[in-house]
């Protein structure tokens, strides 16, 4: 395991043109370490697609398809049906961002989960439409300043609370639904392996710090992924057969204050002490809710 960690994956090659320090690419590396070569990927439109397949180049070492923004899950259903006819046990994996998952693609994801196909859906959650210039999505956290929810004299940024996508996944009866962050690559790899072992649909949501979106240092993606967990804002979670079976919030969990996380990100720099208090409340609620 220790050796494995730093090995580059043979399924995602260097040479893609993601931003320096991109948190999503850290997560993608960890995901790829959990996959085997008998896998087909269906990818939604977004940063990952744009930066990894600039024709005539491709960074993918696995069979990979991109169709549209909102339909990666339905495309995966079609792949799965074709494989069934071919009597192949090939794994089907969907990759999408939070915009493609929480917003525009949610109806098709629901349809896919309803059909109970053996497909793993991975959401790289950058908490905004990173690819189009950091507009707010259903995954944007409360009080974050984005280009469509800018902080201003009369606004402290997004006034909507982040949608609970994990709960939506669980409501579909998924046997495996989990959450991780780019701060814990091994956790991601382990969860990928567990998700793939399940017979039926599974869901993994990975907080993927976005350098230009979060307005942070280019060496900060892993640190931010860790702080999201240690503050309780984005705990590492695992639901098996609908039950919380693993959580970073245990009896021994000693949370850092949310300010430690917020102060390193430009998207929160407009916040005053009273605003930060509100976000601390959200973290406290999480700590209550996800305690194992």
């Amino acid at each position: 395991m220790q050796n494995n960690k730093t090995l580059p994956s043979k399924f995602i090659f260097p040479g893609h043109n993601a931003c320096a320090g991109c948190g999503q690419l850290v997560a993608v590396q960890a995901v790829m370490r959990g996959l085997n070569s008998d896998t087909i990927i269906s990818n939604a439109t977004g940063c990952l697609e744009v930066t990894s397949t600039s024709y005539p180049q491709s960074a993918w070492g696995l069979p990979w398809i991109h169709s549209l923004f909102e339909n990666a899950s339905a495309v995966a259903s079609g792949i799965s049906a074709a494989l069934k006819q071919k009597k192949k046990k090939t794994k089907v994996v969907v990759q999408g961002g939070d915009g493609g998952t929480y917003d525009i693609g949610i109806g098709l994801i629901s349809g896919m989960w309803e059909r109970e196909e053996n497909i793993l859906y991975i959401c790289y959650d950058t908490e905004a439409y990173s690819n189009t210039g950091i507009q707010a999505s259903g995954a944007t956290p409360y009080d974050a300043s984005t280009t469509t929810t800018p902080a201003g004299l009369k606004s402290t940024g997004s006034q909507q609370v982040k949608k609970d996508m994990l709960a939506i996944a669980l409501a579909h009866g998924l046997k495996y639904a989990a959450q991780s962050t780019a701060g814990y690559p091994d956790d991601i790899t382990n969860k990928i392996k567990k998700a793939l072992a399940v017979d039926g649909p599974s869901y993994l949501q990975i907080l993927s710090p976005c350098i230009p979106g979060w307005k942070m240092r280019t060496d900060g993606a892993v640190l931010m992924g860790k702080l999201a967990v240690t503050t309780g804002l984005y705990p590492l979670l695992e639901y098996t057969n609908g039950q919380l079976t693993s959580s970073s919030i245990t009896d021994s969990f000693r949370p850092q204050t949310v300010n430690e996380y917020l102060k390193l990100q430009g998207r929160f720099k407009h916040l005053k002490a009273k605003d930060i208090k509100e976000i601390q409340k959200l973290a406290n609620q999480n700590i209550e809710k996800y305690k194992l």
Partner: protein
Amino acid sequence: MISKNKKQILEGSNAIALTIKNIAPAVVSAFPITPQTHIVEDLAKMKADGLASFEYIRAESEFAAASIVLGASATGVRVYSATSSQGLLLMTEVVFNIAGMRLPVVMTVANRSVSAPINIWNDHGDAMAVRDAGWIKFFASNHQESVNQHILAYKIAEKLQLPVMINVDGFILTHSYEPVIIPDDKTIKKYLPVYQPPTGTYLDPKNPVTLGAFFGPNNYLETRQMLHEDLMSSLEIIKEEYKLLNKTLANQGANHQRQKLSRIDNGLIEYYGPQKPKTILIAMGSVIGTILETIKNFKDVGLLKIKVYRPFPAEEIVKIIKPAQNIAVLEKAISLGQSGPLYADLAATVMASKIKKNLNLKNYIVGLGGRDITQKMIKEIIKDAPQKNNYLKFIGKI
């Protein structure tokens, strides 16, 4: 040798479903919309009764259905879907994507008007909304033609890696009964071999490829040009394949040419009427029967039926209309703010061919939202065609 017992009286939808069963796609996905429903219900029942072995994937929207067949097709198997009207419009983004990705998807469109106002009956507004998507578009005028066009569609699609849409008039063709011969699976297989796309063109872990990559300004234009040129060159291939299909189906009695009603029938167009007509009516789909019946009493009137609308068979059309003085384009669609889309295509064709400067080219919009097109209306159009008056007329009531 025609065995008489092969001819059956079938509902149009049932005829299509039985043909699809014999063509044996691996994956079928659809979402119900009137008047497409009977086709997909029949396919679901065939699957339930063990008469067909395809995966039938129940989609939660037409958008999903189109995406599902896209994914399956990209995995290298034969696929089928069917839709209508709003369903086709909801699919639009995927329809364009399928063509751009060069996937041989075959889909039936049970043509129906587009909302608002909501109306479930037949016209060609839906098909025209995706006119520029890059699909080959067949229009059928009766059940046998619809059956044969479905078989032809798969051959063309798989040979050229191009999607094909078969347009059948909603209710008029989908819900009516006609004598029809469904070619058996053995005969179809002779014409349409088991589908196996070349290695490296589909999703396969043994040969990983990237499909649907990101194209910049340096590459995008050429891919669109290539798609256009491939569509244009499919015209000749459709003609060849149509001949071959008719030859294959002759022993089943299902070859369309057998009826010998038309002077010219090459898969792209059909022409009925005198060699030197004064007036030619041009139309697509089920209205052909009514027009044909009407022009029997007019010695100098011919009828040109367009069977392949995209790619547009301009050269074939020019050959037919050359001797005529008056051209009346009858259309069940309107490009709002311009004219009927077929009329615009004709005008461009006439202009480019320089056949006649003073040709009288007129457009009659008929049958929208299921309005009956009567022989009386057609007679009126024949009478109006040589008149120098408005080039565009809506013919509703006479």
